Every structure is written in C-alpha cells, then in structure tokens.
C-alpha cells in the first residue's frame, strides 16, 4: 500500500542521499519519542511553521500551505492527484457540454453539522466565492463562471463565459471547498470549519496548536473498502523557529515537519527514526529588480546583475549544496519546464564590462532582504558579486512587513526574495509577478508582449499548447532580465519512518485521510 506518487519516487531516487538508506544509530534522540506522540494510538503530531490565518477556504491567503490544514476539514467536487489527473470526490462524475459544466454529486454525504451535502449547498459555496464584494481571496479563480445552478438535488451546473483551462484545478482546491450552508450564513468558518472532510476541528489556539479528531461519518473509504480516516487524532503544533522544529522532531515530540532549511534537516540525516520525502517542493530564490528607477532602469545593468551572480556558489553556501538551478519559477518536474532555456553562465568579467559601458561605475545599489536565515547570507553574496562589477552595493536586512512596505513604494533597487514552487498552475505562479500592475510586480515589469502571452495562457486549453506559451514567457523574462532567478533549495517533507499513506497534491501539499502509523 503506497500512495507516494510515481514522480515522488523518482525524485527520491534521484537526489536524496539524505534518505533512510544509510540508517545508523543516532548520537542522541528518539529517546523520549514515540510514546509522547502516542503513535500506536493513531495520533499524529505535525510541526507546522505557517499557521493559517483563517480556516475559511474562500479567505485563505497562504498560496499553498493552508491547504495542508484545510484538506482535513473540507472536500472538493473533484480531486486532482499528484500526476495532475482529476478524480471523483464530492462529484462522482462530470461532463462538459460547450460552455456548460455539469457535476453529478455523490449522495449520502453529510457535513460535520449533520446537514446533507447537495446541489443547493454547492451553489451556496460557489456563489459566495464568485462575489468579489465580500472581499474573498479566491474570486479570481471562478471569474469565468457566469452562473451556478442546481439542476436537481444532486446535479450542479456551471455556465462559463469563456473556456477556462484551469477551472477544474481551481475547483479541486480552496475555491471549490464545500462548507455547510448554515456556517456560511453564520460567517463562522474562519475559526470553526464545518465541511465534509475526514477530520473535525476539536480546538484551535492561535500560535499554539490545532487539534482535529477523526470524522466517524466520513464518506470516503480506501481501495479495500475500509473506513477512512485511519488516524484518530491529528495535532498541528505551530512553531516557526526551524531549530526548534528540528529539536522537536529529534525528541519525538512531533512526527512530521512541513519544511526545514537544509542546514537544519541535514542534521537529522543520521536519525533512523526520521525519513525525508522529496515531494517536488522547491524554494525558488529570485531577485526582484526595480526597473522603474535607479541603476537597474538600465537593461545593461540588469544583464550585468544576472551575469554577476554565481548561482552555484550561492546554492553551496546558503543551501548546503541541496538545490537545483532553474531559469524561472518552474521546477524540472513541471510540464511547462523547458530544457532549452538556461540561466546565463557566471561571467563577472562581462558583467563588469557592461557596467563600464553603461557608465554606472561607482553607482550605489541597495539590496533588500528579509531577516530570516539564510536569506541575508544570499544577499551578502550578491552584494560582493555586484561590488566586483564596479557598482557599490549595500544590503539592508528588514523584517518582512517593512520589506514589503518599501517594495510596494518602489523604494529599492533589488531585493532577494523566495517563493515556494510549484504552484497548482503556471498562471498562478507567473501572473502575480509579471502582469503589468499585478500585486507582486514590485519592480514595475510592464510589457505588452508578456501581458498578451500570460492572458493567452489562461484562455487556451491543452497542456502542450499552454506549455509553449509558458516557454515563451520564461524566455522573455530571461532575455529582459525582468527577474533574476537564483537557486532552488530542496524542501523535503520530513517525517517519522513509521508514518505511511501520505497523499500528495500536484504542488506537493499533503493529505492525511489515508495516513497511518506502521507499528
């Protein structure tokens, strides 16, 4: 019984020398473990660094990590498996007929509060997401849905204004999560999630922990027809400090940690009770460049920056060698990854020439960076490389809120930033950073060509056609040095070797409904 995706296996085999193959006795650890987390009783404790602000999926703000928690409480009409295929969930079947999408809903499913899940409930949920007036964060996901109607107790119909290649993707995640109509009305989902999911909320203390109990009436069964979920209780311990998370894992206080930086997880390599699972998640470091004013308004200066940075050197120093190099936010497992696009060779001499040609020698450049390891180290490396080109660079280490403030005001030259990739769809990865005037387009990238390409990417259907468009996009940002992409540290999921049955989403986020402890 394994639910690890095939791609996951390949990734494991490919890279993780960290894996549990060379298990030896650890120096210390695992002493007071196990018993405390009550493994055999089916109690899982997760060390989680990114506590959701809300458990209302329509208002969820973390790009992907919230879903690890939301998946506990909510189901969607369809699920998307790790290979990107859509499989039935609350909808047993669906069909597309022109601009009409019809879902045949599962019967006999109840919400945690006992009310039945039916087409009316689904309409209430989707209509709420489609209403931009209530300020929800997912409205854009259903922007091309014109109307939602119940065509019978268990038939749901969506009318589209135009084709939407990622509608099913969106419906399979936060925008399509189904909550009880009475809690929608009470507007209480933010602290009291009521869905149809495998677990029910037992308690949630902000910044401390969240406890969930198995939902005894869960509709799903495993392949053998056995009831799910298998775990009796799941606790999320909200801890942000990586070294505390690592210590808690060592001591057996937690069974799984969402993500740790390489310098922390490499310390667990010798621990026989811990295994690393490469779910394909990468932390994609990049440099946001202000091209509206200052030195980097000059394209030659941006090119010089891209040539000056030693991506391999930064990866070795700041990610302990556990990294990939990619010319964009794409990872090599993504369907829109294009091998023919490469990052430029490290060429400090050419970079210095460019700065000289542009007459920018001695010009001052400020590099902003968030106060969180290892980011300042990366900024310092970039600084020294820029100084060698003849520019005069300085690093400003800021708390995240202050950093964003300055970037939103355009008060910076360059900023070392990071996002988790992959996202569910390339449009969700690229659009917020590249479309003219988009929220995370701090540097003022504004190109009709890019805007048209990105709009086309959300219009046409077919993976290979879309892959071509996103190749164009990646080529364009590389050619113009709109963003400079650095390294992509691996971010494996780290968990107790006895924890089995984790199910992954296409973007590496996990589900716990089939998880269990092997004793």
């Amino acid at each position: 019984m394994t639910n690890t995706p095939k791609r996951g296996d390949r990734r494991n085999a490919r890279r993780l020398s960290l894996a549990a193959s060379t298990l030896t006795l650890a120096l210390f650890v695992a002493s007071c473990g196990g018993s405390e987390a009550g493994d055999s009783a089916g109690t899982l404790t997760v060390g989680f660094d990114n506590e959701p602000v809300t458990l209302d999926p329509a208002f969820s703000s973390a790009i992907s990590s919230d879903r690890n928690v939301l998946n506990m409480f909510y189901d969607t009409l369809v699920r998307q498996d790790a290979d990107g295929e859509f499989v039935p969930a609350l909808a047993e079947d669906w069909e597309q007929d022109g601009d009409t999408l019809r879902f045949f809903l599962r019967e006999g499913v109840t919400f945690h509060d006992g009310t039945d899940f039916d087409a009316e409930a689904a309409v209430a949920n989707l209509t709420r997401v489609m209403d931009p007036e209530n300020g929800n964060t997912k409205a854009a996901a259903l922007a091309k849905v014109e109307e939602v109607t119940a065509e019978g107790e268990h038939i749901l119909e969506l009318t589209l204004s135009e084709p939407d290649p990622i509608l099913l993707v969106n419906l399979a995640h936060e925008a399509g999560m189904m909550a009880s109509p009475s809690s929608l009305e009470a507007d209480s989902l933010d602290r009291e999630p009521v869905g149809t999911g495998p677990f029910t909320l037992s308690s949630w203390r902000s910044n401390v922990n969240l406890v969930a109990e198995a939902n005894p009436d869960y509709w799903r069964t495993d392949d053998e027809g056995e009831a799910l979920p298998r775990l009796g209780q799941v606790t999320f311990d909200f801890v942000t400090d990586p070294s505390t998370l690592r210590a808690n894992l060592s001591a057996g206080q937690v069974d799984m940690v969402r993500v740790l930086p390489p310098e922390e997880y490499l310390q667990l390599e010798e621990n026989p009770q811990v295994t690393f699972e490469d779910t394909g998640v990468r932390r994609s470091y990049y440099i946001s460049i202000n091209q509206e004013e200052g030195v980097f308004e000059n394209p030659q200066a941006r090119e010089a920056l891209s040539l000056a940075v030693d991506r391999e050197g930064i990866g070795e120093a700041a990610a302990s060698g556990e990294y990939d190099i990619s010319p964009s936010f794409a990872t090599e497992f993504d369907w829109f990854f294009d091998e023919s696009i490469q990052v430029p060779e490290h060429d400090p001499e050419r970079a210095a020439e460019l700065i000289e040609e542009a007459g920018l020698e001695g010009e001052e450049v400020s590099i902003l960076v968030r106060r969180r390891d290892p980011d300042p180290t990366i900024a310092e490396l970039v600084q020294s490389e820029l100084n060698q080109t003849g520019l005069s660079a300085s690093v400003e280490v800021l708390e995240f809120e202050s950093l964003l403030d300055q970037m939103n005001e355009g008060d910076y030259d360059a900023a070392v930033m990071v996002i988790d990739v992959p996202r569910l769809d390339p449009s969700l990865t690229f659009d917020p950073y590249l479309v003219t005037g988009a929220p995370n387009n701090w540097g003022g990238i504004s190109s009709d060509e890019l805007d048209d390409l990105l709009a086309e990417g959300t219009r046409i259907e077919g993976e290979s056609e879309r892959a071509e468009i996103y190749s164009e996009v990646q080529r364009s940002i590389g050619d113009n040095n709109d963003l400079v992409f650095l390294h992509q540290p691996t971010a494996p999921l780290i968990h107790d070797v006895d924890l089995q049955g984790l199910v992954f989403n296409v973007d590496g986020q996990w589900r716990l409904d089939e998880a269990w402890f092997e004793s």
Partner: protein
Amino acid sequence: MTGFILRRVVQLVIVLAIVSVALFLLLRLLPGDPTTTILGTEATHEQREILRAELGLDQPLIVQFGQWILSVFNGDLGESWITGEPVSAVMSDRLPVTVQLGVMSLLGALLIGVPAGVLAAVRRRSTLDTALTGAGVFFLAIPNFFLGPLLVLLFALSLGWAPPSGFVNFTDDPIANLIHMVLPAVTVGSMVVAVVMRQARGAMLDSLGGDYIRTAKATGLSRGRVVMVYALRNALLPVITVTGLQVGALLSGTIVTETIFTLPGMGSLIVNSIFSRDLPVVQGAVLLIVVAVLLINLVTDLIYAWLDPRIVYDAA
C-alpha cells in the same frame, strides 16, 4: 496609609494614560500593513480596501484612538485583527502560563538565592563564598537567549530529561506541565537568583556587622538564632526591594524565554502579534503588563511597612 495608596492609584492612572497614548501611536509608526498578514501578498487593492474598512483602518488615526480608548474604559479591549477573537479572551488564555512561569522562577530564585546569600555572608571569604559569588556573576552575565538554547541542548537533546519545547496545561496533566516548565523557569530565574543572592549577601554582611548583633551574641543567644532572626529580618528589606524591581526584568525575560520554548504565554503572544501586526492584541497585552508591574511595585512598598514598623507612609 490610605492616603498613600490613593496617591499611588492616581499615579498609576496617569502612567497608564501616558503609556496608552504612547503605545497606540508608536505601534502605528511600525511599517507594514496588517492586511498583508491576513490576505497575503497577492491580494488585490480592492480586497485590501474591503478588509481595511471592516477593521476600521480607513478611519483617521484620532478616531481610531478615540474608539479604542473608549472601549478600554468600558472594559472591552477589542478584537484581534487576525483571528477575530476578543483580546481579553486571548489574554486570559495566555496569562496563566506567564504567571506560572513568573511564580516558579521567582520562588525558585528566592528559595535558592536567599539561603545562598546568607551562607556566603556567614562564611565570608571562604571557598564556599567565592564559589557562590562566582556562580552568581556567571548567571548574571549569561543572557536568557543564550542560556535557554544551552539548556535545551544539554537537558533535552543530549540527556533527554525534559522536552525541548512546548506546553501542557496544568489541569490536563500536572506532572507533564511541571516538566515542561522547569527549563524555562530556570532560564528566567537564573538572572533573578543571582541578583537576589548578591543582595542577600551584601545586606547580611551589613547587618551582621551591626551593634545589635554584637549585643545579641553577648547575651548568649545561639548563633543560628542570631543569624536567622536578628540579622536576616533586617537584611530582608533590601532583598524585597530588588525582588520587586526584578519583576519587570522577569517579565521581559519571559518574553524571550517563552519564544525560545514556544510557551503560549503573554510574552510569545506579544512577539507574535507584533510580527503579524495584530495591534489590538499588542495594546491589550502591553497594557496588562504595565498594570501588573505598577501593582507589584505598590505591593512591594506595602510589604516594607509590614516588615519594618519604622516605615510610615502617611505624614502625621
């Protein structure tokens, strides 16, 4: 005495008024936007505006301050911007942890610090005195943020005697609760124990040199009785003073220590809320701590009078 207490209460109100204005304004000077924490970086301008209106952030600062101070007077500290929970509920959930941590470290500091100080004074210039004084200087010099991780490394990770972090409610499991609290209490208490010990030693040396001690000895009283009753009672006064003053330091120690050990107390609440720009929670929590420190100083003054009948607060 009543007049004294009244004066102090008036002082307390004035201090609180100044603190709340300063607190409110200083927090507004922080860069950053609470809507980023709530909506993420990729939210649109419209989504942010809707949320700002909901939180009342579209009002002028003076209106926001007025609304806040009015509701504080009505006993309502407002709601968390991030979670929507009432600030008072959040604090009543967190306060017991900090109180327990404070009481454990203070009691520990007194129980170890006073006897150690007395012993060092009685055995003045002995090896024991040198060792105790040395240890005191060591603990005085070592900062919380260094001692905490050091203790975790040794007692949690190497020896496995205590958990590296976390918290269990006393009502759920008293033993586990105490086990989780030992390392944090040692971390917070280390600095206080050193201060108490040095103060106790110094005060004891003073009173042991007093004429009344010589007289007491001359009347044939036992050495133990002279030290424990005659000298110690007089020496306690300065010890109480420093202990009272240490409560402020203790509270700031809990902020660092709770963060290191991820204890759900007031300290970690303040730190987390500052980082997430949850200003109503920061305001409520800081106000509460200010009130606590002021009240403890008042109580300290009252204890003086009880310990030393010569101290009279009201002019006749």
